[in-house]
């Protein structure tokens, strides 16, 4: 008697005789037992792979193997984390209190041309004959001339020596004009309100900044 597919099926259905059961069990637990006889044309490798796939889908996921860590591992881990923490803290403190003052220089000596400056989150068209700077640490703007300015974040600046505050909303464009001392002579308008300025002034602003 040899073990074949039909016999195995009957074994699983508890339909085998005592004799048959003994033979099958002997075959199952004996590494040197007879080979399983396959139906004609069946590929042994393909069949193996099919069986393995079926079994795999029913198996629970392989649990994560946790390797035992040595004491030195935990020591180094702590040291590295502390180093990263101190490095990041230092970077943040440095960026908040840089050793060099963050000043955006906005000077334009040209009598006719506008100078484009993109620096420190400020996008500025500096009007002709303009001297200006923004101290980003002290939140101060100094201006003698004209600027077309937009910022990458909401910013509040104070005009140097005046106490007059100006607020820039992120993404909006403003025109600032100032040519004498004192807050009274500062004109700042959102570009969208340009038509509210006197037309003669608008014409010059349009020509200046090529709006």
């Amino acid at each position, binding site marked *: 008697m040899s073990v074949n597919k039909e016999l195995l099926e009957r074994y699983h259905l508890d339909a085998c005789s005592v004799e048959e059961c003994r033979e099958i069990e002997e075959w199952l637990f004996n590494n040197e037992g007879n080979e399983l006889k396959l139906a004609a044309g069946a590929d042994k490798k393909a069949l193996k792979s099919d069986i393995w796939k079926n079994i795999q889908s029913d198996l629970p996921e392989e649990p994560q193997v946790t390797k035992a860590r040595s004491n030195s591992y935990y020591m180094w881990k702590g040291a590295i984390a502390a180093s990263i923490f101190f490095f990041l803290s230092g970077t943040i403190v440095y960026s908040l209190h840089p050793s060099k003052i963050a000043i955006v220089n906005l000077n334009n000596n040209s009598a006719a041309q506008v100078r484009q400056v993109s620096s420190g989150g400020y996008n500025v068209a500096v009007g002709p004959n303009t001297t200006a700077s923004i101290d980003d640490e002290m939140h101060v703007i100094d201006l003698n001339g004209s600027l077309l300015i937009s910022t990458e974040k909401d910013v509040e600046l104070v005009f140097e020596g005046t106490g007059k505050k100006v607020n820039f909303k992120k993404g909006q464009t403003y025109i600032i004009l100032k*040519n004498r001392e004192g807050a009274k*002579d500062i004109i700042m308008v959102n570009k969208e309100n340009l038509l509210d300025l006197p037309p003669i002034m608008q014409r010059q602003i349009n020509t200046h900044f090529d709006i």
Partner: protein
Amino acid sequence: MFYNIKSYALFVYLLLIAALINGCGPDQKDKKLPAKYSIYVLAKDGKNYLLQYNTLDSGVLKPTTDGIALDTLKMGRSLIVSNHCYYYLNSKTALFSKYKVVGATLKVISALPVKDFTIENFTWLKGDTLLLTGLNLPGYNRAEYMLVNTALMKVIKRGFLNIPGPTGHFETMSLGFTEKRGNSLLIGHTYHASQDIYNFGTSDTLYVSELRYPEMELVSISKDTRSTYPGGQNTVQSYSSRDENGNYYFISCPGIALGNRPELPSAIFSIKKGAVAPDKNYFFNLSASKIQNHVYGMWSLTANKVIVRTERKDLFKGLNDHYKTAHFEYYVLDLKTKAIQKLDLPLDRGTRKQCVIVQGNVAYIAISSAKDGNYIWKYTIADGVLKRGLRLTDDTDFILRIDTLGK
């Protein structure tokens, strides 16, 4: 669907909020009615919105959701609105474009190349013929005109207006009004000198040139030194009126926000029917009246009455806050009797706005108040009753224009 009672409660709460928000907008019934009015808003988010609605008497509109966000690199508020279309000259792209709202978008119907020209005034002649008078770019020192057939979007004619350019220390000029009378064209103008971007001045004289139409040849020039800066760009705001007898009225605007000759008075001038120069015997000095301030903007109300928009010099500090401080008042003036009646409206914001529409017995006035929000006010001319009408929600910064969409 809901894991616990809390998530279910949150869902119901959000549904209620959504229903409430939707309830603030125009209802479906109103939205389906054809739009009669156009409202141009500058919102607090810094964007320009165009809205169309079927009434100004009531309702609520939220520009950021009910309006069409405009690309101001293409189109701005210095518009000509007629027969459901918007006309705009973009100096940067050198295109004069015709727009129309289709569904929820603003569509370009057609565009004309118009190089080196800026519009100072527009006047509708016969039917679809539009006369644009303006100046050369970038000089602003030569008067030019363009006749456009707006139905075909074709330039009929473009040329120079035979008006003297600036001389002496004057470098640029302004055209303040254009009035066609038979075979004559009357154009109000003045001249400017600028030391720099901050300091500019206007001649102490206003001029009215009479040109032969259609040749545009100069026939006569009258000078008037009672005030200066006649009218203004009527694509941005109205500055003139006609009475029942065909007499023409225009306002002079020498205040700091236009002519910058504040020592001269804001006044109404008249050009009688058949005349070609301001009437020497008519001068309605508004700065010397109980208004006591400079005036910007004038709209026809009835046959003999106008509405004017006036500043309050005690409430603003200078050009920096002139447009954003609430200080503008409205008055009804009788051009014949010179009676002056102040309208009981909240103080308005915005230096130049096309904010008055008159239809029959009603005037609609768009007010952007600092305390009272943004409303279109309804003024009944017969009994003088003022009521709040359509509200624009608080995301509105300025109502910059209201226009009728019909012809």
